[in-house]
């Protein structure tokens, strides 16, 4: 067996030393083996108390949002809800590190990030309720539609960031993915494009342990998902995804790096999905209760509460205010979803093209006639 000496490469015709070398030394690209933590460490003291209190407030409200949405699925008021319960620290921090001009590219599990960004909590749910594909205005909110086909939003984030940079606007795009999504070709193509273009984009992988039933060990053989960045020539970062200030710090750094022309970053946040994949999934088929119980001890809301109290940063007033805000939001969700949405069947034909085709006009007329006939028949019955 021959072992290839890397010096042999210099004899490859046309190869020049340095021609394919990464733009940055590989060493700083590699993720630190131990995920960044802030809660329970002396680093906490360096954080602005106002920021910590804001993170806490958003976590509490976010948890309640997840709980209420899950209840709405049980009542048949939402078609489906992929809860981010247990992942609130990632959701909240992802929204908070972005400025008003930046763009968020969420996946289907990231409703809470969308809401935390300021999108109306009910509008963010229309896809999952089943009455429209996207309930908010992506341009007005600088938030792409919740994306269902996995990893397909990642290249969009790259393209948008690239375009923004071409027009010299200080815009950053943040794309959110799951651990499973990192196996898709689109993810790898997005990373490669981002690095080649040095696009101001941040990829946040919420590694919650499972892609539906498939554990990470069967998803990837890499030492970490953050390692995947290195081969493309961008830094990879590992963070405790249940430590809200830590996620905020790591993402914030990546966003600033992107904004200042430093190029893309891949951040892997280690977290856990406390609920099933969606309300339609049976998680007992593929994971043990003990595992879930252990992660409940590492719950992002609990962690935050415990450590802020210890640091003397959490007072009863804030706890009460956050909880009242959470209850008010839940009550608003219940009230809104209690009644059926008013839907116009004719909206089926809106926005398929800028101008409807003649065929669509014809089909719209057909549906209108059907609806009119239905109404007439109902009126007949009532007389």
């Amino acid at each position, binding site marked *: 067996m021959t072992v290839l000496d890397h010096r042999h490469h210099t004899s490859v015709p046309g190869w020049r030393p340095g021609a394919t070398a990464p733009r940055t030394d590989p060493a700083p690209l590699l993720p630190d083996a131990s995920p960044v933590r802030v809660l329970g460490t002396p680093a906490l003291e360096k954080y602005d108390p106002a920021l910590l209190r804001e993170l806490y407030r958003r976590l509490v409200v976010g948890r309640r949002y997840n709980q209420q949405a899950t209840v709405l699925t049980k009542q048949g008021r939402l*078609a*489906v809800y992929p809860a981010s319960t247990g992942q609130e620290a990632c959701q909240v921090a992802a929204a908070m590190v972005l400025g008003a001009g930046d763009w968020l590219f969420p996946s289907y599990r990231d409703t809470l990030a969308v809401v935390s960004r300021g999108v109306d909590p009910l509008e963010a749910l*229309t*896809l*999952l*309720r*089943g*009455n*429209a*594909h996207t309930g908010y205005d992506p341009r007005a909110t600088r938030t792409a539609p919740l994306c*269902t*086909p*996995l990893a397909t939003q990642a290249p969009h984030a790259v393209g948008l960031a690239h375009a923004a940079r071409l027009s010299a606007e200080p815009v950053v795009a943040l794309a959110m993915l799951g651990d*499973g*999504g990192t*196996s*898709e*070709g*689109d993810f790898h193509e997005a990373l490669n494009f981002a690095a080649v273009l040095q696009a101001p984009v941040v990829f946040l992988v919420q590694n919650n342990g499972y*892609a*539906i*039933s*498939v554990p990470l060990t*069967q*998803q*990837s053989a890499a030492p970490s998902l953050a390692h995947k960045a290195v081969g493309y020539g961008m830094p990879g970062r590992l963070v405790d995804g249940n430590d809200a200030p830590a996620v905020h710090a790591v993402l914030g750094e990546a966003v600033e790096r992107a904004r200042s022309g430093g190029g893309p970053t891949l951040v892997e946040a280690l977290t856990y999905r406390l609920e099933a994949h969606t309300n*339609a*999934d*049976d998680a007992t*088929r*593929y994971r043990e209760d003990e595992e879930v119980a252990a992660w409940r001890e590492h719950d992002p809301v609990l962690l935050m509460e415990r450590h802020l109290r210890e640091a003397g940063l959490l007072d009863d007033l804030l706890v009460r205010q956050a909880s009242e805000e959470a209850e008010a939001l839940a009550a608003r969700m219940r009230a809104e979803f209690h009644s059926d*949405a008013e*839907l116009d*069947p004719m*909206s*089926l*034909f809106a926005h*398929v093209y800028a101008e409807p*085709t003649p*065929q*669509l006009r014809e*089909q719209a007329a057909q*549906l209108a006639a*059907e609806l009119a006939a239905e109404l007439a028949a109902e009126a007949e019955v009532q007389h």
Partner: protein
Amino acid sequence: MSTATPVRTSTMAQALNAALRDAMREDRSVHVLGEDVGALGGVFRITDGLTAEFGRDRCLDTPLAEAGILGTAIGMAMYGLRPVVEMQFDAFAYPAMEQLVSHVAKMRNRTAGKLPLPITIRIPYGGGIGGVEHHSDSSEAYYAQTPGLHVVTPATVGDAYGLLRASIASDDPVVFLEPKRLYWGKDGLDPAAPVEPIGRAVLRRTGSSAVLITYGPSLPVCLEAAEAAKAEGWDLAVLDLRTLVPFDDETVCQVVRSLGRAVVVHEASGFGGTGAEIAARVTERCFHHLAAPVLRVTGFDIPYPPPMLEHHHLPGVDRILDAVARLQWEDRG
């Protein structure tokens, strides 16, 4: 296709599961792979228990990458295995389109027959289950338009079993479209019962006025429409195509010639859809026997709508009856 499984009431999902199990028992080269096909048994439980019985190598949870899954299956088939691939939902098969169109469909042809690919690609398809975006597409026309692929779609429990067994046994690649809204419909299943092979259409209901030509998820709707049509004095036949490729011109034309009136029904969009192909074929072959143009009742030419509006999009009984009324061409003067 003899098997030990006794006759019993079964859902379509269970019949598909039994077909996979029986095929794997009988032929060691049959391997199942896809997302969540292992411990979970697939999101629709079609692969339930296969990993427990046959081990992880023969029922493999793959990383989440459809192009990777199908591309890997190609290599496995090149080495002599019979891979059965599960695509989780219709619209999630699209990342594998390159592998499907450029390689799966063409390998036999490109290699002058040296590398046939006996791959079965199972894809749950169609709407009516209240799924959000990307969970209700009917993509059969894309597949049927691609030479080299068989396109099979069962509508009954017996066919689910028989056609899946036949697809796995086929030496050609088969896109096996499972109408997901029929997964939970029950019927008797006798795995030993003879099943019409791939490529044969079956008359599910005889009639004397006109024929509804359909397949997959629209079959029960057509049968219901035929029942409702009796009140209007129409006696409708219902023909279940079962296979789009190869297409059973013979049976279809036989029925159309004898009745002279036909409506094609499917839930995919109409424009450039399989209904257009069927109407054209029938017109070319049966022109002089037709008392009216072949009509189509299909979904609108729109992206699949959100669940709360899908019933306005999907062809239902009334729309079919309206078309049947329009078939009384000569009566209109």
